[in-house]
């Protein structure tokens, strides 16, 4: 039986449940010094003086770095892209300027963490403060058109204005989402060790080992081949560990300067200033439709904050380009505003999860305005042609997601009127939202080695951030090799392995997975070649395509001759057989088909109208993510994504004090992520389609998709329950009272 498609348990499970999986800060480096950051108290201005004399005298202190004595760093490359190193324009401790609260203004290195932390409190700083720039109500006036960094900033297909002008029914509303932080359970950490030969090893909490290496090479002025980045287990990334943030560069530069390994682990509070976040958005959507609900024009504009030194764009209107067609046209636009926070970054799910809140809320408003069932409205506007590019979709099973999801959810038992469903004093509401998610195509290399002991080794420079990479790569290789799962070992997370891409954007399965598949094929084909034409070839005369491998045994019908991989290697005097996989897809935009994954999310909420409290009682996610390699880990991604959506909808917001320009709720009792008690039983449904345009594996992206359109499904359910339309996330108590 094929190992692909099997719901196998995680291969690293025994390590993780026993506390034996070693994360970056668990790796003990003898003699390493520990560093602590002195953060800026102000958000905008400069340091007039930094007095480190007391800190330097404190017990255990090895060195104190400020902008005056920190080694100068080379500027980061611009512009960014997902293929090039991720870094910020801002580099730590290079001058006296302050651009955000929490920005490092000194780094204390000491023998122990306690000593470094204490000494850091002894540093006296004098500031010259300016009024901070914040993302306030007047942001609209200060917004500007940014240069492109991922996709085109604006888009226009057809004539959206015409469609809106002529529409029988028009929805025009503004929706806002809050700043949010990743809050991975594992704080960012970096341990930098320089070798006597000028080589650098970085133990790093990263979703992008090769990006980290490339950026560190540029900024530190060290050839990339002299840098090794290791990241075997990452305690949650969600996009926030894909960039190289200031702590990594400070640890490396400090370690070089003092001639000793340095570990720098961020405090929880540090994580709210230095390492990115999801930017807030202010979005305006206009939908025009005929009386039946068929869309005639769509306009979607979004404004989001960026830092004062980088042009990060939250492409909130991206999904709107391709989800629904409009007979006259679709236009989208993004602008950004400078604020005194650090540069935002990708956070599950960047772009789409924000834009879909607006778009799919507006679609719900349109459903009520046209007296159309919200599922039926979406089915009416479904399409197989990408409205943006005009290309056919490779696969688009959105219709099945909607219909199968509705059937399983029991949508037909919903009464359409708001406030019409109750349980005693509790109002019940049900809502739906659809989603489209970008498919990333990035190059990846992998190596698969068959060994004479009958085992195989998979090597790929990818990451385990929770997605199950160790597990699914093993399944892919075992499937191609025709070997039992327990004979295959996977190695990840080290730049000495074949180069792969960042583990972001739900891209690992389709791309890194494809490279593993190709590498396994190459290794297997070498073995087949030996079986057909090697020394004492056991399958001589058979055709290569007739050879099958089962449990490591190669055979070709109709003969009953067979040989194991091990026998073939022994017979040919080989210790191992290596296959290289080099997956190098054309960019999606240049292909013949438009490739996206899709979903429909159904939510049920219970609202206590006295208190304005919303409890999610049911969630169902129906996903078209192509072929599912491991239903068990894939289901967990669905579960996790839905819960991320619950957080976005009801709980999460990083609040800025507008006078100070700093985030206020910088801990896990102030920033609320969902707790176990917030989450009901969740239902996950896969509408599987093998998508060979997306990947030779047939798989499309899943992890990010699952966190998209949960918030609008919940907010639409809240409207159905209460008759109140909330256009400002999160839906907290006061908005419903």
């Amino acid at each position, binding site marked *: 039986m094929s190992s692909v498609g099997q719901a196998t348990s995680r291969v690293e499970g025994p390590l993780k449940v026993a506390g034996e999986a070693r994360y970056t800060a668990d790796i003990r480096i003898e003699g390493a010094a520990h560093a602590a950051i002195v*953060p800026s*108290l102000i958000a905008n201005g400069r340091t007039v003086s930094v007095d480190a004399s007391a800190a330097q005298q404190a017990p255990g202190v090895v060195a104190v770095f400020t902008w005056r004595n920190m080694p100068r760093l080379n500027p980061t490359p611009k512009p960014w892209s997902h293929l090039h190193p991720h870094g910020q324009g801002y580099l730590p401790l290079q001058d006296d300027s302050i651009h955000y*609260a929490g920005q490092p203004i000194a780094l204390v290195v000491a023998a122990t963490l*306690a000593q470094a*932390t*204490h000494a850091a*409190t002894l540093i006296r700083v004098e500031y010259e403060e300016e009024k901070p720039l914040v993302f306030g109500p007047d942001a609209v006036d200060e917004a500007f058109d940014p240069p492109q960094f991922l996709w085109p900033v604006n888009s226009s297909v057809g004539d959206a204005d015409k469609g809106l002008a002529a529409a029988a029914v028009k929805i025009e509303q503004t929706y806002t989402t809050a700043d949010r932080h990743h809050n991975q359970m594992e704080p960012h950490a970096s341990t930098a060790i320089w070798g006597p030969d000028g080589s650098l090893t970085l133990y790093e909490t990263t979703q992008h080992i090769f990006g980290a290496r490339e950026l560190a090479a540029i900024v530190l002025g060290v050839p990339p081949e002299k840098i090794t980045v290791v990241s075997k287990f990452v305690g949650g990334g969600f996009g926030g560990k894909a960039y190289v943030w200031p702590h990594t560069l400070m640890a490396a530069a400090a370690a070089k300067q003092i001639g000793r390994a340095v570990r720098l682990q961020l*405090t929880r*509070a540090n994580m709210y200033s230095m390492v990115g976040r999801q930017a807030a958005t202010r979005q305006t959507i206009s939908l025009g439709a005929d009386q039946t609900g068929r869309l005639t024009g769509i306009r979607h504009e979004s404004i989001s904050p960026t830092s004062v030194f980088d042009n990060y764009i939250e492409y909130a209107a991206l999904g709107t380009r391709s989800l629904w067609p409009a007979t006259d046209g679709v236009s989208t636009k993004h602008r950004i505003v400078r604020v005194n926070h650090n540069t935002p970054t990708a956070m599950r799910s960047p772009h789409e999860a924000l834009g879909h809140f607006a778009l799919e809320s507006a679609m719900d408003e349109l459903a009520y305005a046209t007296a159309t069932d919200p599922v039926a409205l979406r089915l009416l506007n479904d399409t197989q042609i990408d409205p943006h590019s005009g290309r056919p979709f490779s696969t688009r099973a959105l219709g099945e997601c909607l219909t199968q999801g509705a059937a399983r959810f029991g949508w037909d038992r919903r009464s359409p009127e708001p406030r019409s469903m109750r349980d005693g004093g509790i109002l019940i509401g049900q809502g739906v939202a659809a989603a489209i998610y970008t498919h990333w195509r990035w190059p990846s290399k992998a190596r698969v080695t068959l060994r004479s002991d009958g085992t195989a080794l998979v090597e790929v420079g990818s990451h385990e951030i929770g997605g199950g990479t160790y597990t699914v790569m093993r399944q892919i290789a075992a499937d191609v090799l025709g070997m039992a799962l327990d004979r295959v070992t996977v190695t990840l997370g080290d730049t000495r392995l074949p180069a792969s891409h960042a583990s972001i954007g739900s891209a690992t399965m389709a791309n890194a997975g494809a490279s593993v598949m190709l590498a396994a094929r190459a290794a297997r084909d070498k073995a087949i070649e030996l079986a057909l034409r090697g020394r004492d070839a056991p399958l001589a005369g058979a055709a290569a395509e007739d050879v099958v491998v089962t449990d490591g045994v190669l055979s070709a019908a109709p003969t009953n001759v067979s040989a194991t991989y091990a026998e073939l290697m022994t017979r040919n005097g080989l210790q191992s057989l290596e296959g290289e996989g080099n997956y190098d897809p054309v960019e999606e935009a240049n292909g013949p088909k438009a490739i996206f994954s899709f979903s429909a999310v159904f939510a049920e909420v219970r609202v206590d109208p*006295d*208190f*304005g*409290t919303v*409890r999610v009682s049911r969630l169902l996610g129906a996903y078209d993510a192509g072929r599912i390699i491991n239903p068990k880990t894939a289901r967990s991604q669905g579960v996790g994504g839905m819960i991320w959506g619950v957080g976005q909808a*009801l*709980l999460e917001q990083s*609040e800025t*004090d507008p*006078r*100070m320009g700093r985030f*206020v*709720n*910088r*801990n896990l*009792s*102030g920033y*609320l992520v*969902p*707790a*176990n*008690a*917030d989450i009901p039983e969740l239902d996950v449904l896969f509408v599987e389609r093998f998508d060979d345009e997306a990947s030779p594996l047939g798989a499309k992206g899943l992890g990010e998709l699952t966190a998209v359109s949960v918030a609008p499904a919940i907010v639409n359910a809240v409207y159905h329950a209460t008759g109140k339309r909330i256009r400002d996330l999160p839906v*907290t*108590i*006061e908005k419903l*009272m």
Partner: protein
Amino acid sequence: MRVLALATPEDPTQAIAAHAADPAVAFIAGGTDLLGLIKDRAARPERLLDINHLPGMSRIETFPDGSLRIGALVRMSDLAAHPGVRLRFPVIAEALLFAASGQLRNMASIGGNIMQRTRCAYFRDEDDLACNKRRPGSGCSARHGVNRNHAIFGWSDACVATSPSDLAVALCALDAAVIVRGPFGERSIAFSDFHRLPGDTPDRDNVLERGDLIVAVEVSANVPGRASHYLKIRDRQSYEFALVSAAAIVELEDQRIRSARLALGGVAHKPWRFAEAEAALRGAALDDAETLRSAISQSFAEARPLAHNSFKVELAKRAALRALQIAGARA
């Protein structure tokens, strides 16, 4: 952390003497609040007295007359699981079970629980922001800052923080007493006098003086606690401090309220007792929501919401009403 020394006193007298003699000394029991404050440098004791081994302070005693004595070192989880407390004082068990998490309840002591300091984000910030509780005279960042979670009653320009303890709200409603031993002997402090309003000295949360050690909390037999309820409203379903909470204890006669005790949490620097409402509730029919509601409103004449928490006024009224109704249903 900058703790330089630790000692383990053998008896209360020793502990009290050591505490009284030195302003840099603090008691530590569960540590679940104090260590957070120390890490955030909102408390800076240099020496800690580990009082966990003091004798006689870990007992829960229920007496035949219905009264209750809780040793200050009793853990939250033990008190919440105590069959007599569950039966006779549901408001206490509920206040405990709706607080913190299972792990924290296994650690935190009852004495420490009612000593908990505010969760005001400005006060807790490890960057040492302006806060009169933290550094007297430095100003109140929350007064004109982000203050959704802050007080609507009894605040001053110097401080708008709220008290975070759920248990304290229940104990306040129960007219409990805090038994304190100090350098000059033992005294009993009425619960509603234990916590202070901020006034000009918000650095002081309560009336304890240096050398004072809480040894127990007592609930008198005069309060029939069975018909009681603790209701907690928060954004997250669990593991979160209250936005607003209400403790209600009701005595009924022919489905009319003979006496009601009502205290609210999350609204002031101390548990906020609703004396006017309690008086107005006397004689009201439990099923007459309008009358109950208007009686409760009597206690809101002095409500002064801040920029971000005006919703708390209505929320507090509704919470009080619901708590009363649920408590009454248990009568």
